[in-house]
């Protein structure tokens, strides 16, 4: 039986002589892995509908096993293409989803967020805030949403002037001066992050630091290659040494 869904390609990898292994992020079924048979053959008519990243498709696949067979992939809207810096941000988001989303675990919310973010990356250079919102959404979906208005142990509300540290898996804890060399956050910044006030450059920067540590915790020691690549890319485009939006 054929299954249809909208979706994006997260990753393709050559498979046997003429095929691809395709990781799809679909609206109705979450991440799905398919074999796209014959898609690498240059004479194939299907080649014209080649599988691109960051392009919404109507996918059709079938199969009973975990590895499905891709039956059809049609682009469903105008083709957006990401360029330069934003292309590298796109690769970062794909690597995040590839590593953090389980297979066949659908989430319309994450799909909608990804769709919006990719569209945004295709049209606007000021993507930082949108990227932070998507990361927060993803953390929430994974069950590790950041709680930024109360201390996890006491339940006390966060005070504007006070300093806190974030213990991943738990929550905010008052910063004690004897704790060695930890990431420290000011109450007012935490509340601003909670309100997603990322137009403020300072807040966005603090959020980046906090979210990055939360994502690293989720990745459990795995390094994101796209993050390094993105920073290497920016290093050659900007003289500013304070770089890296991912």
């Amino acid at each position: 039986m054929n299954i249809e869904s909208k979706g994006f390609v997260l990753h393709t990898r050559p498979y046997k002589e003429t095929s691809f292994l395709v990781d799809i992020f679909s609206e109705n079924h979450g991440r799905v892995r398919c074999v796209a048979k014959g898609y690498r053959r240059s004479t194939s008519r299907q080649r014209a509908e080649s599988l691109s990243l960051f392009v919404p498709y109507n996918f059709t696949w079938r199969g009973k096993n975990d590895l499905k067979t891709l039956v059809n992939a049609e682009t469903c809207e105008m083709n957006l293409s990401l360029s330069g810096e934003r292309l590298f941000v796109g690769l970062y988001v794909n690597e995040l989803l590839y590593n953090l989303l389980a297979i066949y675990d659908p989430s319309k919310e994450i799909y909608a967020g990804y769709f919006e973010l990719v569209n945004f990356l295709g049209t606007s250079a000021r993507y930082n805030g949108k990227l932070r919102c998507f990361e927060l959404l993803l953390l929430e979906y994974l069950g590790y949403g950041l709680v930024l208005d109360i201390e996890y142990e006491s339940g006390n509300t966060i005070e504007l002037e006070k300093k806190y540290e974030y213990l991943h898996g738990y929550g905010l804890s008052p910063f004690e001066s004897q704790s060695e060399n930890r990431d420290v956050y000011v109450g007012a910044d935490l509340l601003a992050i909670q309100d997603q006030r990322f137009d403020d450059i300072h807040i966005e920067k603090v959020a980046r630091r906090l979210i990055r540590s939360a994502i690293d915790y989720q990745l459990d020691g795995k390094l994101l290659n796209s993050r390094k690549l993105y920073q290497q890319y920016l290093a050659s485009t900007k003289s500013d040494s304070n770089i890296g939006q991912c």
Partner: protein
Amino acid sequence: MGLKCPQDSNFLFSLVFEYMQEHILSKLVDDLARFPGIGKKTSQRMAIHLLNKDRKGAEEISASIQEALSKVRKCGRCRALTEFDICSICQSEKRSKSKICVVENLQDLYAIEQGGSFRGRYFVLYGHLSPIDGISADDLGIDLLIDQLSNGEVQEIIIATNLTVEGQATAYFIAEKARSLDITVSRIAHGVPVGGELEYLDGNTLNLAIETRQGF
């Protein structure tokens, strides 16, 4: 091993029990099947041909593989395969030292050479940037390329990576590095093939062809 159906690629050997002892022959069949595009059926035919009909040819093949393995390696400048330290293209005095064309694979280099109009040098990446597969700029020798761009001889870099997203990312990455060294960067044109009819092209290709149109 049970009885196999005739579609099984090892049918020829597994059918006859005694043949299962022929380890040397079956290893050769397995080894020949390493070539891209060669299945077990074809590798069986190749093995039989070499051992029955062309034993001298088989010896020559064996000797050339040995010699190539010990003497052919990547060119110190462009990474193409060569039996010299620096390949014949890089050494040639007829080649412009001011232009470097960057390709993903050696086959791409040969294809451009076949075209015959490019008279500069090359750089072969052997792949493209792919974070999820863990392929980084270092794996593609981009640091070696940047070193060469810094020597003052190169004025233009022509990027001929594939038009996949990863190929594009690789192009942007190299382009930014090159621009920061004040080198002219160009990308090969993409669009309508020579002799092609528009109605048979897909929408993406046509869009690109229109976006990157040239004065006429």
